[in-house]
C-alpha cells in the first residue's frame, strides 16, 4: 500500500527520518502509538486514548486533581498550544514539488469527511434534541470540522496526505469560530484572524531577524506564540488559523524565521499535544448524551474517512482507497484543539457537550485505527 502511487511523488522526508528498517524492538512495539499531530511535527508518542483518559481521570469528573479552577487557568495555555500547532501547520502548508495533487486529494478527503460527519451528527442532534441554544447547523459543522483532521501514524505511508488534510479544517474552523463566539460575520472573522496572524508574525519576523543570539530568538518566538494564542482567545478568534497564517508568513518571508520556529518550537510539540489531550479529557462531563454523541462521532468519522478516501484516491493516484482510509483514521489533535477553542469561545452547555463528544470520539477512533491498520509489514 505504501507504494500505491506515492512513490511517484517521492518519499516523505519525515517518514524517511524514522528509519523504519532498523527500529529497535521497543520502538517497534510503540510504533502504533507514535503519530504526529499536525503538519511539520515529527512523530511523537501521544496516543489520544491514553492522554484523554488520563485527563478525564484527573479532571473534575474524576479524581479532581485538575479542578475547574486549574482548567480555567489552563485555557490560556490551550490557546497558545493551538497557536503553536497552527504555526507548525503553516510552516509546512505550501505543497512541496509534485504535491499539488496530493494537497487537492487531502482537501477533498477532509471535505467529504466533514460533510458525512456533519450530516449524520446533525440528524442525530435534531432527533435527540440535545442542544439548548446553539444552532443545529453550527453544532453539526463543529463536529464535522473536528472529525476531518487526521494524524499521520508512524506505521503508514500516507502520512503526507494525513498531514495535508489539516489545512482545510483549520481555515473553515477559523471562519466558524468567530461566528459562534463573539458573533463576528464570517468574512470579517476570517480577515481579523488572518490580520492577527500576519501582524504578530511580522512583529516576530522583525524581532527574530535582529536578535543577537539563539536565546534571544527563543524568547521572541515564544513571546509571539503567546501573543498569537492569547490575543486569538481573548478576541474569540481561532488560534489555530492565526498560527497557520503566522507560520505561512514566516515560510514566505525572507530570512531564517521559519527555520528558527521549527528548531525552537520543536522540543515543545509533545508537551503541547499532551496538554491539549489532557485538558480535553479533563473537560469531559461523562453522561449518556456525551457518550452517544461520541460513539456517533467515531463511527461516522470512520464512514467519512472511507468515503473521503474513495473520493481522494483517484486524485492522489492510489488504487486501494480502503487502505488509504485506514491510514487516515488516527484522529488529529487539530480537531480536538478546534473543539476546545469552541468551548473557550462559547462556554455553555452545548459547547461542553460538543467538546466532550469530540474528545471521547477521538479516543474511540484511535483503537479503530489500530484495528483497521494494514498488515504489520507496512511498518517495517
Amino acid at each position, binding site marked *: 500500500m505504501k507504494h500505491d502511487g506515492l512513490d511517484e511523488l517521492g518519499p516523505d522526508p519525515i517518514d524517511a527520518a524514522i528509519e523504519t528498517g532498523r527500529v529497535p524492538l521497543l520502538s517497534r512495539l510503540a510504533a502504533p502509538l507514535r503519530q504526529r499531530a499536525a503538519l511539520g511535527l515529527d512523530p511523537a508518542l501521544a496516543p489520544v486514548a491514553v492522554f484523554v483518559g488520563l485527563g478525564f481521570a484527573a479532571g473534575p469528573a474524576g479524581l479532581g486533581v485538575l479542578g475547574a479552577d486549574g482548567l480555567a487557568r489552563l485555557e490560556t495555555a490551550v490557546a497558545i498550544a493551538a497557536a503553536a500547532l497552527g504555526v507548525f501547520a503553516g510552516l509546512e502548508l505550501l505543497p512541496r514539488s509534485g504535491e499539488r495533487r496530493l494537497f487537492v486529494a487531502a482537501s477533498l478527503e477532509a471535505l467529504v469527511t466533514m460533510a458525512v460527519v456533519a450530516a449524520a451528527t446533525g440528524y442525530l442532534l435534531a432527533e435527540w434534541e440535545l442542544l439548548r441554544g446553539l444552532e443545529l447547523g453550527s453544532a453539526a459543522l463543529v463536529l464535522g470540522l473536528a472529525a476531518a483532521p487526521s494524524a499521520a501514524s508512524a506505521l503508514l505511508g500516507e502520512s503526507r496526505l494525513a498531514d495535508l488534510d489539516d489545512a482545510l479544517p483549520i481555515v473553515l474552523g477559523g471562519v466558524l469560530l468567530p461566528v459562534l463566539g463573539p458573533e463576528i460575520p464570517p468574512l470579517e472573522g476570517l480577515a481579523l484572524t488572518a490580520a492577527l496572524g500576519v501582524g504578530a508574525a511580522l512583529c516576530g519576523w522583525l524581532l527574530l531577524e535582529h536578535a543577537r543570539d539563539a536565546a534571544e530568538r527563543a524568547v521572541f518566538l515564544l513571546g509571539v506564540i503567546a501573543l498569537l494564542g492569547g490575543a486569538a482567545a481573548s478576541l474569540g478568534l481561532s488560534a489555530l488559523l492565526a498560527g497557520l497564517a503566522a507560520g505561512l508568513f514566516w515560510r514566505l518571508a525572507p530570512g531564517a524565521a521559519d527555520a528558527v520556529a521549527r528548531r525552537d518550537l520543536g522540543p515543545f510539540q509533545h508537551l503541547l499535544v499532551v496538554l491539549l489531550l489532557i485538558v480535553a479529557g479533563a473537560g469531559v462531563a461523562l453522561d449518556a448524551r456525551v457518550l452517544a454523541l461520541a460513539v456517533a462521532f467515531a463511527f461516522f468519522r470512520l464512514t467519512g474517512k472511507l468515503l473521503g478516501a474513495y473520493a481522494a484516491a483517484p486524485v492522489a493516484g492510489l488504487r486501494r482507497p480502503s487502505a488509504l482510509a485506514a491510514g487516515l483514521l488516527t484522529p488529529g489533535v487539530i480537531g480536538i484543539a478546534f473543539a476546545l477553542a469552541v468551548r473557550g469561545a462559547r*462556554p455553555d452547555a452545548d459547547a461542553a457537550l460538543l467538546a466532550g463528544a469530540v474528545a471521547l470520539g477521538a479516543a474511540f477512533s484511535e483503537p479503530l485505527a489500530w484495528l483497521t491498520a494494514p498488515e504489520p509489514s507496512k511498518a517495517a
Partner: protein
Amino acid sequence: MVPESRELRLLLVTIGASLAVLVGLARLRFPAAGPAAPPPQLLPIDRLGPQALYEDLVRAVARLETRLAPHLVERTSEDGRPALALLWNSTQALAWSPLPERASDPRILAVDRGRGLLLLRHAISPPPAALAEWSPEAAGPIYLAAAEPGPGGWALRPVYVGRLRATHSTTWGGVLAVSGASLTPGSFLFTLDGRRLGLVVPDAGGAAVLAGSNLRAHAESLARDPRGAAWSGVRLGRTPSEARLIVLSVEDWSAWAERLRAGDSLETVGDKAPASSLEAEEALRSATAVAQVRRGNARLQVRPVGEPAAPGLRLADAPGGARVVAVAPDSPAARSGLHAGDRLSAFDGVDAPTAADVARRYGAARRGDRLVVVAGHGREARALVLEKP
C-alpha cells in the same frame, strides 16, 4: 483508477451499515435536560472572573430568590395564564402582556397597548429596598436568573444568555439583544447579585432585554400618559411635603398651553381635588375640565384651549388650519392616525379648516363615510382617512 470489486463491495457495505447505524442511533431517547448548567470548566481568558461552578450558581439563585420575593407580584393575564409583575415603587407594579388588558380592571393604572406594557396598582408597606437599574451598556456573556411565572408560583431559572449587545429597537428604543438563551417575554431577568434587572420583551421576532433604565423611562412615560396615546401635555409633581400638586411643565401643543404655567399649584380639576398627579393628569384630558390653580397669591380658574370637533377630537383655531389639541384613545380620530400637535391643512375638501368647519363637515357626513384629512407636523404633511363610525 477504477476501484477493485472488493473495494466497491466494502464501500457499499459501509454505506449500508452507516445508514442502519444512523437509524438505530436516532431511536435513542434521553431524559429532558435540566436547567442549563454551566460547563464545569474552562472560562475563556477574557472572562477570568468568579468561577461559574454550577453549585455556586444554584446557591446564588437561592439567595436571589429570597431577595426578590418582595419585588415580584403574581397576577393572571387576560387570557388566564399566570404572569408576573415587578413592584416599581410602593404603589405601582410593571408588567408585560401579549394581549390588550381590560381597561375596566381596577388594578390597571395605565396601558401602553402598542408595546404591551402595563402599570398596575399594587400597594405594599413598607416598600422594599429599591433594585438598581441596568444600563444598556451592560456587556456579556453572563449568567442571569430569569423570574418566570408558573402554576405553582414564580420561580427563578438560571440562564446563560450568551452575549448582551446594545441594539436599537424601533419598538422599544434601546434594547439588549441576547443570544444563546430561550427567554419568555414577560419574564424578568436579574443579575445573580440582584443589582441589575431587565424585562424580557418581544423584539424583531425574537426576545430582547429591556434594560432597567429603559424600563424606568417607559414606566414614567406611561405614568404620565395613562392611556398611552393622548397625554394632556401637562406634567405634574408633588412638593417635597406632598401637600400640593405643582405644574412642572406644559407642552406648547397642549390644550392647557398658555392657560397653565410651570409653578402653578393645582387645587381642583372639575371641582375635585385630585388625589395623585396621575389622577390629575387624567382629569386634565377632559374636554370640560375646569381647573382651579393658585398662582402666587392669586387663585385662578382656567379652561383648556380648543373645542370638541368630532368624537374624541379637540381642536383649537390657528392660522393655516385648526390645531389638534387632544385625541382620545380608541376614537375615530386616533384610529385615523391623528395626533395631538398636528395641524389640519385640509379636512374633507375644506382647506385650512377651523374647528367649526371640522365639526360641521363631520356632522354632515353619514355613518361609514370616509373623510380625507391632510394633517402635518412642522413641514411634514400626510393624508389620512377618518371614518365616521
